């Protein structure tokens, strides 16, 4: 239980409402019992070769993985984030886990019913009626993509939406051209590890001039015990194209900590746009801080073309430790990068998250809106970099980082780095920290609104600018998630 003392909130009732908000149990905690094809624990070159062989990968892919692995051996785990966790034993994880199944799946009927049940619980729209809702899903279940819906509809438009393993078989030239071009295998400790051992992930290619007619969506779920999940996502929006991609993450409850070190690479060419939305509620550990996911993720987009745009929106309520900075490299002139984030931490969760906006092209613009909510004994840090390069004439950045504190045992921190090498740039950064005010709650009470609803209302108001950026169906889910993560229904 989070310790919330009445005197911190002025009344027992208020304290209780906040406590209810911050101590809800993880609602996605169950385990699917199916047979797994899992590598023994440990990491070495043979494991890397084994993964590559399992997936029948081309030789260059294996070479790239091995280069990454050898480089990783020379690296040290970063210690600068404001997070604390026991040392990770990388030999204690298994680096490949796939459900045992028939090699070819023609239709949903062939999918393991246990698996389907899991997806159902997750609310993933796999069935026919859900298809009609207009959502195509590439479901990644412990590293291997089992089924992809809507492929045909998308194929008509020339859109490729498949697992990255499949893409390596079907479109190796595209993968070869772009993989590692945004996040090189040398990038950072966790991205390098991912480059060596990534098991699967999504691949999207939107051809020239095509506007993807539906939201694309992937659900990830770490299932098997002690498997690190290393998915790798690559999305390419060719000239003049548009795609909105949704990513949702959940994981079952476990006592031990699981490692999640994903890499996401986005590329937009001239006049293209990618909107990438994440709702992340990986298991955060229990109220004592036991268990939970280590979420060490590298997400980066490159606006290669002129007038292109990449927009990251994230609502993060899960994980024991989060370390991620979805960023944009604004190379093309007039390109635009956006980052909208809500990060909620409670109990013993720790989050060190933010964004990097690297302005290289002329007239590039970026916007950062970050809302951090800390409760319980958690620590929530915003860390961001805005860099305006020498040639980025007339670039603009606006950043706003607001923190809200609930209770007196949590921390909120802001670490913005601003580097400007061009005199025509305009950069604005604002940050505030406040608490959910007793006065605000009393005011809402006085209009007949209960304390629990009042807190929800204040929190939702605080996050509004970010929710507004989410696609409709996701916004609803995000609000729900926030309410569950902070318990009760949001007013």
């Amino acid at each position, binding site marked *: 239980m989070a310790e919330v003392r009445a005197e*911190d909130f002025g009344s027992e009732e208020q304290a209780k409402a906040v406590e209810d908000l911050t101590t809800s149990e993880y609602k996605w905690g169950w385990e699917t019992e199916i047979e797994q094809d899992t590598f023994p624990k440990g990491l070495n070159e043979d494991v890397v070769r084994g993964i590559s062989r399992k997936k029948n990968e081309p030789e260059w892919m294996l070479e790239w993985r091995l280069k990454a692995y050898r480089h990783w051996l020379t690296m040290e785990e970063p210690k*600068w984030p404001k997070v604390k966790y026991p040392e990770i034993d990388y030999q204690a994880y298994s680096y490949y886990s796939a459900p045992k199944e028939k090699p070819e799946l023609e239709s949903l009927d062939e999918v393991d019913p246990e698996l389907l049940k899991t997806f159902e619980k997750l609310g993933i729209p796999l069935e026919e009626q859900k298809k009609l809702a207009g959502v195509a899903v590439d479901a990644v279940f412990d590293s291997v993509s089992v089924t992809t819906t809507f492929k045909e509809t998308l194929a008509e438009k020339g859109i490729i939406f498949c697992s990255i393993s499949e893409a390596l078989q079907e479109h190796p030239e595209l993968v070869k051209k772009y993989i590692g071009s945004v996040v090189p295998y040398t990038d950072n400790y966790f991205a390098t590890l991912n480059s060596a051992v990534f098991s699967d992930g999504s691949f999207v290619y939107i051809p020239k001039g095509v506007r993807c007619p539906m939201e694309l969506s992937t659900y990830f779920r770490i299932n098997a015990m002690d498997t690190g999940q290393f998915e790798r996502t690559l999305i390419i929006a060719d000239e003049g194209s548009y795609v909105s991609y949704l990513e949702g993450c959940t994981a079952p409850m476990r006592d031990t900590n699981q490692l999640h070190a994903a890499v996401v690479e986005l590329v937009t060419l001239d006049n293209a746009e990618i909107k990438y939305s994440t709702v992340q509620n990986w298991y955060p550990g229990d109220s004592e801080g036991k268990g939970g996911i280590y979420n060490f993720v590298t997400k980066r987009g490159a606006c290669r073309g002129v007038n292109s745009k990449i927009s990251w929106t994230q609502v993060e309520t899960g994980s024991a430790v989060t370390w991620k900075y979805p960023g944009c490299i604004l190379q093309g002139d007039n390109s635009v990068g956006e980052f909208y984030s809500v990060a909620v931490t409670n109990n013993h969760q720790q989050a060190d998250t933010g964004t990097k906006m690297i302005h290289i092209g002329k007239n590039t613009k970026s916007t950062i809106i970050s809302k951090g909510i800390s409760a319980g004994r958690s620590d929530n840090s915003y860390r961001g970099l805005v860099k*305006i390069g020498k040639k980025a004439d007339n670039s603009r950045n606006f950043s706003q980082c607001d*923190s809200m*504190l*609930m*209770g*007196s*045992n*949590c*921390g*909120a*921190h*802001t*670490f*913005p*780095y*601003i*580097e*400007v*090498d*061009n*005199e*025509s*740039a*305009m*950069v*604005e*950064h*604002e*940050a*505030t*920290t*406040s*608490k959910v005010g007793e006065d605000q709650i009393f005011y809402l009470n006085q209009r007949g609104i209960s304390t629990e609803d009042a807190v929800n209302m204040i929190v939702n108001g605080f996050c509004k600018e970010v929710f507004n950026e989410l696609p409709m169906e996701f916004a609803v889910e995000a609000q729900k998630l926030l309410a569950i993560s902070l318990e009760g229904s949001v007013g």
Partner: protein
Amino acid sequence: MPAESNLLKKYTEGFAAFEEKLNGQSETSFHKVRNEALNKLAELQFPTVKNEEWKYTNVSGLVKNDFEHPLNIETVDIDAALIEKLRIDDVDSDILVVVNGSFNKELSVLSDYPDGIIVDSLANQIKNNSELTEKYLSKLTKIENGFNALNTAYSTDGVFIYVPDNKVIEKPLQVIFINGSSENEVISLPRNLIIAGKNSQVSIIANYVGYGEKEYFTNTITEVYSGANSVVDLYKVQNENENAYHIDKTEVYQNRDSVFSHYNMSFGGKLVRNDINSTLDDENITTNYYGLYLGSNKQHIDNHTFVNHAKPNCESNELYKGILDDQSRGVFNGKIWVEKDAQKTNAYQSNKTILLSKEASIDTKPQLEIYADDVKCSHGATIGHLDDQAYFYIRSRGVSPEIAKSMLIRAFIDDVVEEVKIDNLKEQLNHMIFEHLHRVEI
């Protein structure tokens, strides 16, 4: 990098020779602190850009030089006429002169102070093992890097100011720090200790100026103890010459109800680094940090500030503004730390920079670290250029481009300059600003 640091080599090895020249000071109790600092120097060495606190300031060029200790060179010859020239014009103040780190009583112009007030050379106080130096010297600050260690181990003197309880020093004290030499590449290591008792008041102008044509390195530490309900104003006017490396650490410890204001006016030097730290260790304390940094040519100016809110009901205000021209580079790193007990803290920080040239650059990193929940904290940082619209507006009234730009510069810095409480100093700062930026004064 030790291999490339001649400075480190010279000073880790040269301590015995230095001790011999100390002329009795090595017998004092402070000498133990020096010895400890020497060990720290060997242990910490000089920071590299890999150190987060020095990420944007590369001192490898500085530490390559083996600057000579002032005890090993001929004393620089300064006369009263020069002092008259170096003092800030029209500011009615007492004068203290410190030449390459040594207090010069003959050139100083002091008043008769009320009983108990001490305005003296620090060396004197160390030599006499005064209770106050025992209690405070090197106690208010910690050695955080090689530069701090170097000053602590090798500094021999500086100014010592003590204002006892309920006493006021009416006139500002202007300390002229003259650094550099025409003959040798020298390191100047002033060490200052300012102790303000309960209900006391003092205003100090620290005026750093350069001397001679040789490269030199000013590495200074000032410790300030603000007693309960005291009011201390510390104006730092840094006018070193273009051959100067300048590293300054100012550490302030504040007691309840005290008000400490620091004015950091940075003009000269080729590489400048200021660290200003305050610990607000009781209730109802006010801390004000005002800063101006003006860069031209290839100057590099790095300001690090740290406000540590340790207790409830305190307030800190910080306003730093910079104008960077030519190829100059600015760094601002402002940290506000609010400890768990420091409820009802109000902390504001604002950093604004204008870049006047294509090749100028700024790296800014305002940080909030907050562990208390009932606080109001905010920071803001903006980086931009002179307002085009306003420029056009002024021009459209027939004003020349030069004057129009000067007007906008004036408008930009105005709120910082206005905080200066000494009127004539305000005027003089205005002169310095326009002179330093080579702009028409308005």
